[in-house]
């Protein structure tokens, strides 16, 4: 049996895909979350209901959407409505998961996709919240997918775009966000993280193959909670890689 080779991105997508729960509604952001959702729907979550913000719900993901409004987001879908309906569906508590990216993340899972540096005189102007803030506000559980390095995993995000736990325990509800919501995981190029149930701080959960705790710590710009037992993420299976390469991203837009 030959060892498969795979990229960090492929691994990240596979680990993320395994987090999708079958038979749930899931808000899918642009990019990597789309690949993960497709992989999940072709493997462990055949009854996943993908929701795309501009109106597509329940699409059959036969081809990779390259935009959150294109026809692939409602291909053989169960409904194609508008953005208000989708966001209001989330606001009513109907969307179980939200999969998101961002340029920065902090220990409480807050995400930044607006500016690096000061808002009014930014060093880097990023695209903006898009639906990110809405997803982080209304979906029951959110999962972030990020490259792992110390410039991205920062003690404090330059601009708090998408709410994680804000300043810590109780802060979401105090701010008026719906009870019972919040981030539950971060999938990075190095590991899978969750959050400590009491402190709400990011916690290492399991390592990608070949990655050490020290490597994760060195690439994280804040103190990560390290539990006594750290798990190990399985490498991509041959089938996962085949699906990713042949069916999901044959044009190699991401992988």
């Amino acid at each position, binding site marked *: 049996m030959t060892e498969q080779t795979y990229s960090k991105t492929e691994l990240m997508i596979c680990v993320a895909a395994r987090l999708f729960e079958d038979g749930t509604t899931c808000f899918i952001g*642009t*990019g990597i979350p789309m690949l993960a959702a497709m992989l999940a729907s072709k493997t462990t979550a055949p009854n996943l209901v993908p929701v795309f*913000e*501009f*109106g*597509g719900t329940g699409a059959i993901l036969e081809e990779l959407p*390259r*935009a*959150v*409004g*294109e*026809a*692939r*987001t*409602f*291909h053989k879908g169960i409904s*194609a*409505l*508008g*953005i*208000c309906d989708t*966001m209001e569906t989330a*606001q009513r508590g109907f969307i179980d998961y939200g999969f998101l990216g961002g340029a920065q993340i902090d220990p409480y899972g*807050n995400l930044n996709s*607006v500016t690096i540096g000061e*808002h009014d*005189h*930014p*060093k*880097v*102007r*990023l*695209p*903006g*919240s*898009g*639906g*990110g*803030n*809405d997803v982080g*506000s*209304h979906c029951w559980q959110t999962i972030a997918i990020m490259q792992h390095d110390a410039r991205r995993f920062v003690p404090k995000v330059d*601009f*708090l*775009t*998408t*709410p994680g736990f*804000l300043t810590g325990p109780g*802060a*979401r509800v*105090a*701010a*008026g*966000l*719906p009870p019972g919501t919040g981030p539950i995981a971060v999938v990075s190029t190095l590991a899978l993280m969750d959050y400590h149930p009491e402190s709400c701080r990011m916690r290492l959960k399991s390592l990608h193959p070949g990655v050490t705790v020290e490597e994760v710590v060195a690439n994280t710009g804040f103190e990560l909670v390290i539990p006594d037992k750290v798990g190990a993420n399985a490498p991509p299976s041959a089938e996962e890689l085949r699906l990713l390469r042949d069916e999901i991203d044959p*044009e190699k*837009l*991401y992988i």
Partner: protein
Amino acid sequence: MQVLESGIGELIQPFDLDEFREWNRTKKTRKLVDKRMTEQEAIRQFVYDGCYIGTELYGTVRCPMSLAREVVRQGRKNLRVCGQGVLELDLWLAAGIIKKLDITYIGLEVYGTTAALRRAVESGQVETCVEWSNGSISWRMKAAAMGVPFLPTRSMLGTDMLKYSAAKVVEDPFTGTKVALLPALVLDVALIHVHRADKHGNCQIEGISGFALEMSRACKRLIISAEEIIPTEEIRKYPDRTVIPYYLVDAVVHAPYGSYPGEMAYMYGRDEPGIKEWVEMSKTAEGAKEYLDKYVYGLKNHAEYLKLIGDERLQQAVELREKRE
């Protein structure tokens, strides 16, 4: 129900409900008149320097790209823009015609962040960015569409989004729930691309409706571009498919392949090389200028644009369309 917190962002386009009502009473005819015109006429007549303008949906999805190019071609400037955009707003940013942004997302989606946005904002050429989420900006238009001064939401609470927006936080007087109030937004001009319209402006859309319903009801002037102009009898046969009624509309522009290089559900797909050309060239100011020279300034109108693209590529896009099957 006192105000607990107020965003410090500028209210770029203040809302006056009674003025909007008066506008809708006096400036929008209820008569079924022929509103067809060329894109040049429509932009010349309704888009002016400094106006507050928006496009629907996204540069790559059912977007009035032919109108967006004409705005650049006619040299309109100092635009204040309601922005969730991909190619269309990127083009405007690269052309240097945007002064203020109610921004939600301007990016190239699968191709990442945009260099044109970075250049325009980081250089200070765009003077103001006020932040909103995609939901919030849509609800701001929905408020205007409903004829009310604000709508509540739980979006933006607790974040810098609220701080750098122009929203206000209050307690709901019925239940004590904390909510953000979003001020209504009325655009001076809205550009919307649809599948079919009659000459009066009654519009049909297929696939997702994005925020077309809200935006069409939240603007003072509405320019429609349509893939196809159909007889009014066809509209009257399916009144339940008219999502934008004629009395909202000021101009109807016939624009086949109006969303190209973006897509039109069930009609044609994205032209990936066409999109990538902008992605690559816009990485530098020079490249962007070259693109604009080639596809905008160097051409007289959308018909010439389509000639430049050529039948073969358009036909390829048609092959790639989503099908009802």
